[in-house]
């Protein structure tokens, strides 16, 4: 009898010791006494663990709320297919997390999903049960605008950011070459051409500017924005426009064609793959290219001359001597992950409360930082810093992998990106600010618009042909296969294919968003 008691006590002590670093902070209100189970569909891929059930923060949440979770992780690349299968077989889980910035699982969009009863309209449930998420969203104008649809319907819990992450990628330029050649960072297109020519002639960069394979960059719109235009929709004072058929777009094409003829752009830019591009960067064949802020340091490390190599962010140059571009991509404080509760959920109250718990101060702390002494420590400056376990993992796991093991890289919580400052170099931390220093007044954030399903259908029908036309012509104009005289005729073709109708629809959608 005594021995048995001793054994139990020892086991308990060991268990507590093992759990000790993980029990920190206050406790959340229990949602259930362990009898409630919710199923959650969530695309999740991690090198160290197979399921979020093994994530320490998620385990802690389960312990605090008393809600058991059955995680459904679709195979990579089959998310849409498995969602369709669940719908077709009528076996939807209680909660669906898109696992990313998009929320387009449901054909026809989220509005249609609410209309069809696949996703629940959450407003009433949130009013009643949400302690954290809904009050936070209602109190902040940015959150309030972007976390709901045009008519104010909330259809999901979104990832919220303490500060919007600005423009995280853009043009990168070889600063070490500029220094060596005694050149300033170019601020105009003419200056940029002088720099590229110097790179080619004096630094042996065969093809100094790595133009993306489409002939433009969809994400950053770099250099198109320099000419006050872009390949797709943008807005000027609330007026929707389509850049690729405007006269300024021709200016962009003329410049690219000129650079192509001067050998400043690779002759095979349209067929170069990633490995060829990376090789051009690391061997110094190129000195100007698209880059993300998190890649600046690894570009240096991977280069053939890591001691001198230095690539830094370059503010988008402008085509005129005076002024600056008005267009760049940027992010809202609401960053997707719209996690919906489905019409098949039998206990919406528990589901809403469980989702809401993610936004509690306790979970905000856990999701962002994990556990003191394990994933972070408080430095002498009194601030929290991520530990070496996260930054230089002994098992060689990447940052994202370790985060997925102990806390959250992204997901439905209030993210505090300042936690990542330690990880990056000064150049990297400065980059977002440099790219974000141009105004973004003309930018339309497509992901936040909510077209009706009729609008979406008509736009898709019109734009898929028009985009094909554009993409084909852009490459041929830049490569000189087709003379730029045909631009006017192309404008006419775009008109006959219905671009004006597409702009009209985009205007309606945009008006609704801008008047939220």
């Amino acid at each position, binding site marked *: 009898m005594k021995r048995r008691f001793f054994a139990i006590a020892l086991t308990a002590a060991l268990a507590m010791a093992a759990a000790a670093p993980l029990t920190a902070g206050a406790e959340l209100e229990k949602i259930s006494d362990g009898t409630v189970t919710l199923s959650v569909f969530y695309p999740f891929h991690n090198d160290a663990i197979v399921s979020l059930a093994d994530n320490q923060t998620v385990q802690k949440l389960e312990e605090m709320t008393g809600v058991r979770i059955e995680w459904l992780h679709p195979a990579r690349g089959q998310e*849409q297919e498995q969602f*369709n299968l669940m*719908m*077709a077989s009528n076996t939807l889980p209680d909660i669906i997390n898109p696992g990313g910035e998009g929320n*387009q699982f*449901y*054909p*026809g969009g989220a509005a249609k999903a609410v209309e*069809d009863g*696949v996703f629940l309209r959450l407003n009433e449930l949130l009013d009643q049960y949400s302690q954290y998420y809904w009050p936070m969203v209602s109190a902040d104008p940015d959150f309030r605008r972007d976390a709901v649809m045009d008519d104010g319907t909330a259809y999901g819990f979104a990832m919220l950011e303490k500060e919007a992450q600005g423009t995280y990628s853009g043009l990168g330029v070889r600063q070490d070459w500029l220094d060596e050649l005694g050149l300033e960072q170019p601020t105009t297109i003419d200056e940029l051409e002088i720099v590229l020519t110097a790179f080619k002639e004096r630094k042996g960069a065969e093809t100094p500017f790595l133009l993306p*394979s*489409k*002939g433009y960059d969809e994400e950053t719109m770099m250099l198109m924005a320099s000419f006050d235009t872009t390949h797709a929709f943008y807005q000027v004072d609330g007026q929707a426009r389509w850049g690729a058929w405007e006269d300024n777009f021709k200016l962009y094409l003329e410049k690219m064609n000129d650079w192509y003829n001067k050998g400043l752009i690779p*002759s*095979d830019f*349209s*067929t170069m*793959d990633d490995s*060829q591009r990376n090789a051009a960067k690391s061997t110094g064949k190129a000195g100007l290219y698209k880059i993300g802020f998190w890649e600046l340091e690894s570009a240096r490390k991977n280069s053939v001359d890591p001691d001198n190599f230095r690539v830094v962010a370059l503010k988008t140059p402008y085509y005129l001597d005076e002024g600056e571009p008005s267009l760049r991509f940027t992010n809202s404080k609401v960053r997707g992950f719209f996690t919906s509760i489905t019409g098949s959920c039998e206990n919406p109250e528990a589901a809403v409360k469980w989702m809401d718990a993610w936004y509690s101060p306790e979970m905000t702390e856990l999701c962002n930082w994990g556990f003191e002494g394990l994933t972070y420590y408080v430095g002498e400056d009194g601030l929290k810093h991520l530990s070496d376990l996260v930054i230089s993992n002994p098992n060689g796991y990447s940052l994202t992998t370790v985060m997925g093991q102990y806390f959250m890289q992204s997901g439905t919580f209030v993210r505090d990106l300042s936690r990542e400052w330690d990880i990056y170099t000064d150049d990297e931390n400065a980059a977002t600010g440099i790219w974000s220093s141009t105004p973004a007044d003309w930018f339309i954030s497509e992901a936040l618009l909510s077209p009706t399903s009729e609008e979406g259908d008509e736009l*898709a*029908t019109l734009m*898929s*042909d028009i985009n*094909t*036309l554009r*993409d*084909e012509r*852009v*490459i*041929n104009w830049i*490569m000189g*296969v087709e003379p730029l005289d045909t631009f006017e005729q192309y404008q006419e*073709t775009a008109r006959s*294919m219905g671009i004006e109708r597409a702009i009209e629809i985009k205007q309606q959608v945009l008006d609704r968003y801008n008047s939220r």
Partner: protein
Amino acid sequence: MDLNAARFKRAPLGVRLAKDWRLNRLAYIMALPVAAYFITFCYLPMYGVAIAFKKYSPIKGIMGSAWVGLKYFREFTGGYFFWRTIRNTFLLGVFDIVWAFPAAIAFALLVNEMKFARLKKTIQTITYLPYFVSSVVIAGVILAFCAPNGLAGIYFNLLGQTPRSFLGDARYFRSVYVISNIWQYMGFNSIIYLAALAGIDQELYDAAVIDGAGRWRRLLNISLPGIAPTIAILFIMRLGSTLNVGSEKILLIYNAGIYETSDVIATFTYRKGLLENNFGYSTAVGLLNSLVNFVILYAANALSRRVSEVSLW
């Protein structure tokens, strides 16, 4: 009397089947998996063509989705790029038949003439190989060959031009496609001809040798006529899939700059239908494609039956 009646009147189907089952039980059992395959994967899904006429939503299912009639057919045939995609698909299919189809026959005849068994085996194995490699890898190889620092570079250097990619110029795409197809499928497609050649009576060759026929004569007068029915059947079947070009390969190697020659029905539908979840549209185009293929197949079969008395049915 009874006996005579039974002889002249056909027995009911059930009786005949039962009798046939007793006689050929094994053959039926062996045919079962094949029949099951076709029923499961070719006939059962056929009701899915209804999607072509509906604004399909997976949650509502096929029956519940709204009927849109010929909307998607009109959208496709009235589209700006309709004629171009048809032309590209058709031309790639035809060029592939013109060049790649005879290549496999010629290759089989050549291999058949080889005397050293080991060399013959080695060559066959090497030529089969590309067939078993995934399209993604094949596409990688093609891209590397076509890059300015690959074969394309050598070619343009010889012409005294600046090296560029074969895949950066619409004029080269058809050649790249057909040549790579020959490389990929020639070895594998020759197997069936080799089997047919092996079935030709050796005595015919021996007799021809005695009559003083050389190798070329034997090839023309024995080998080729010997496999002619096989060629005819395969040719008809190949014609039936004229419009089924290797779209995975094209998707992996093309780019917007060469849409002029490389954008085929399947790639166009992929961009338009699947990337945008427009199931109705892609099904409508697929159905149209199958109809055209069927018409070609039917016409070719009819023609062949009349001309050569070889036909599929």
